[in-house]
């Protein structure tokens, strides 16, 4: 009865299921493993590895917790809120709860200083920004089509944009000569190279504010990019997931603002990806959003959102919280302040040992320049340095090559996912390591234009270290 062939499990599954395009087999997860097997704890394991590869925002939970305590109606489980239970538990409409969409639209507008308004009917839900990025690809591109993405970029884009969609990712080269800004020339070069290879470019995707750079795109550059995509008639997807982590000037400029200023802008090419995972520190709640100015995309995307709707319990909770304008204003202000202070403390600490970071005004991380510590100015040299930092200095940081950076020696270091004491320990270790490495050889560092801060205060909020509720995957936490 049985067939003679040996059916390997490989043949039983699809190519997608058995290829590497989920990106989890890269060597960078050694850093994760080092952390997982030996996680730092201030008292129980003070020699352990400190997790600095996780872009989480843990600085402002107390504000949210306070709000929760004061607003029991926001939960469908409390006596005050249980009247809503059956309606919410039953609600699976892919349009989403109207009050949720309205609140999100208002929130997004506030994050942009009220300079733009968002139409709640253009908001689509998805399973986190992970789901949102995949969804927009399914809507805009066919297998084999390509999207341009400026380097360095978030490593998991390979999975989110390409894995199941069959879309190709074409890097747009950026480098430190101009602080990794996106230039028209670089866009043209990438676009033309793709064309020369007969690759159909469907669009450009940028993350603004940038991960891993922590910088925002200035108004003129953004306008230039919009003109570029208009000319080429390709889509422009702006992942603005870090929009409310902007803690310093220049003020954040959203693509939503810029299109108001450009004549004859083809709005049906413009799409925004958003999430509450970074700005509000709620990655567990899986709130991903797609905002499109294109009616067909809204229509189609809404149907696709069935594959990753936001839990109605979560929609209901957030509808209440984000509609509380007074709370939102207070939260955004305080969160930005805490991020600024943490960033300041960390970068100043690095400067003590002449380590500079790319000047940044946003994000949950710094783009640290360790080129001076490379024995060889190659990516192999970068990996050697990285392994030293993970294994000897015991810090899990992310090497630039993981982000497809064109120059070796850059590292992304997260600072918002730990408490103040842990930051101090990390800085001590870095200072010790650098001191050892530099030794007698004094290098003169070109000092980059830096934002100067007049006051310096310690962040006194007590924050928990990442608490592991279960053994967890590297990718989920690492590549954010």
């Amino acid at each position, binding site marked *: 009865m049985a067939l003679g062939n040996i059916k390997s499990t490989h043949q039983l*599954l699809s190519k997608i299921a058995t290829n590497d395009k989920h990106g989890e087999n890269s060597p960078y997860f050694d850093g994760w493993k080092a952390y997982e097997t030996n996680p730092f704890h201030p008292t129980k394991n003070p020699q352990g590895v400190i997790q600095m590869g996780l872009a989480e925002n843990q600085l402002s939970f107390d504000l949210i917790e306070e709000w929760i305590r004061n607003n029991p109606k926001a939960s469908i489980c409390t006596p005050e809120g249980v009247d809503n239970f059956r309606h919410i538990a039953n609600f*699976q409409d892919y349009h989403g709860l109207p009050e949720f969409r309205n609140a999100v639209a208002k929130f997004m507008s506030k994050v942009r200083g009220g300079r733009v308004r968002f139409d709640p009917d253009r908001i689509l839900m998805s399973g986190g920004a992970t789901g949102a990025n995949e969804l927009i690809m399914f809507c805009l591109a066919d297998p084999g089509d390509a999207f341009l993405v400026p380097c360095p970029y978030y490593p998991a884009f390979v999975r989110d944009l390409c894995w199941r969609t069959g879309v190709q990712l074409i890097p747009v080269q950026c480098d430190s000569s101009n602080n990794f800004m996106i230039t028209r020339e670089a866009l043209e070069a990438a676009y033309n190279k793709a064309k020369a290879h007969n690759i159909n470019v469907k669009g450009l995707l940028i993350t603004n504010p940038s991960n891993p750079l922590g910088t925002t795109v200035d108004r003129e550059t953004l306008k230039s990019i919009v003109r570029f995509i208009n000319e080429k008639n390709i889509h422009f997807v702006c992942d603005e997931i870090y929009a409310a982590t902007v803690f310093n000037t220049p003020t954040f400029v959203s693509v939503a603002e810029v299109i108001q200023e450009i004549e004859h802008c083809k709005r049906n090419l413009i799409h925004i990806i958003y999430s509450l995972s970074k700005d509000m520190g709620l990655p567990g709640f899986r709130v991903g959003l797609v905002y499109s100015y294109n009616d067909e995309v809204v229509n189609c995307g809404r149907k696709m959102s069935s594959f990753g709707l936001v839990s109605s319990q979560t929609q209901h909770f957030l509808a209440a919280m984000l509609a509380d304008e007074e709370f939102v204003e207070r939260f955004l202000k305080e969160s930005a302040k805490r991020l600024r202070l943490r960033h300041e403390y960390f970068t100043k600490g690095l400067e003590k040992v002449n380590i500079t970071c790319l000047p940044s005004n946003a994000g949950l991380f710094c783009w640290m320049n360790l080129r001076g510590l490379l024995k060889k100015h190659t990516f192999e040299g970068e990996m050697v340095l990285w392994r030293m930092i993970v294994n000897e200095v015991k810090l899990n940081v992310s090497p630039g090559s993981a982000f497809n950076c064109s120059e070796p020696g850059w590292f992304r270091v997260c600072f918002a996912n730990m408490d103040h004491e842990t930051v101090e320990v990390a800085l001590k270790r870095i200072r010790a390591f650098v001191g050892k490495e530099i030794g007698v050889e004094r290098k003169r560092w070109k000092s980059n234009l830096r934002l100067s801060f007049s006051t310096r205060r310690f962040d006194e909020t007590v924050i928990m270290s990442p608490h592991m509720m279960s053994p967890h995957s590297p990718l989920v936490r690492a590549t954010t």
Partner: protein
Amino acid sequence: MKLLSTKATCNSHGQDSSYFLGWEEYEKNPYDEVHNPKGIIQMGLAENQLCFDLLESWLEKNPDAAGFKRDGKSIFRELALFQDYHGMPAFKKAIVDFMAEIRGNKVTFDPNHIVLTAGSTSANETLMFCLAEQGDAFLLPTPYYPGFDRDLKWRTGVEIVPIQCNSSNNFQVTEAALQQAYEEAQKRNLKVKGVLVTNPSNPLGTTMSRGELNLLVDFIKEHGDMHLISDEIYSGTVFSSPGFVSVMEVLKERNELKVSSNEDDNNADRVWDRVHVVYSLSKDLGLPGFRVGAIYSENDDVVSAATKMSSFGLVSSQTQYLLSAMLGDKKFTKLYITENEKRLKRRQRMLVSGLQKAGIGCLESNAGLFCWVDMRHLLSSNTFEAEMDLWKKIVYQVGLNISPGSSCHCTEPGWFRVCFANMSEQTLNLAMKRLTAFVVECTGNGGSAKRNGGLKMKSLTKWVFRLSSRRDGREQEER
């Protein structure tokens, strides 16, 4: 240049079908006891609204789960940060225990083999991505849930080839039909990657017999590269005999579960790594809004791949936490399962007798949130056009949104899926009154229907007689 993707501009999402159009009509004119008593009653929505009070009372007694607390301490931060695609261990344990309990603990499930997804919508799509290439096919018995056209085919590029079932044997799957579907796929040059069944069935409301399940397992044994997916989303809605037999139980009986099978088995002989179960809390617990779906598989590669893919649709941590507490309360789950069953049975009886009074029969069912109703005698002709005409009358004139069989890919015109668990008893009674009035009008009026009023009673008696003899036939198939 084409602006959007092919997927965005085709209609493989299947939402132009009548199944969804009926919903749209309902949305425009929804029945409300007070504000819109003449509106359309929604009977096209397979929701379980019968046991919310049990859930609400549990919440009342369990304030910790309600308030992001564990042992009185706030765990908000942990929940806010928890995005591990392996899922919350306590939640996975609670779900597999619940699944086992529903199956009378005849089979158990390993929490490490369950993958959490955003509803079974996502679970089914994910399995397609894991098991099939674009252009491959899965065989599905008809009639089937209209949403499968979207969930299985749309973004995956997978094809569905129907296993034609019909009323001659109460729509059961036969070897002949299975073989015919397979051959049809060959003719169309489609590589068949497996079979997907919904058990208990949507839209039939019946549980699959052991005979059918064994037939399917035999089939995939014969074709060593094929999978069997059993969507058991309605497993907790079984309210009368014959009870629910899960495909996992059948594997156990055949000694073909992973634990019981012979280690030396030739890869091609063994079958446990090609059988996968889909589950969800949307029907049994009536919580579709929470987006809780699951894939269960003993195949490590499938679990591994599906887990990574679940990143695109994880279950909200606050929801995982709430439900891990609720389903972890064994006293509660026992009470819930029993009471849910009781209420569904009562409600189904109400619908069936209401239909009978209107001279309408339905397939005898023991599960689900709906009945598969036989309105063939009300068709002006034995065609799908006539079915559409009848459906439109029922939606617009009678004011009931029910689902026409054609939207479920049924091969025989005249069958309709009618839901009974998503409304109050009063509303159900009203729906039956309206339907009765319509039928009287329809058959009393000599011109439009095939039969006139005089023949009506006789044909009803004949029909009831046929139905009971068929029931015996079904029971004989049980081993």
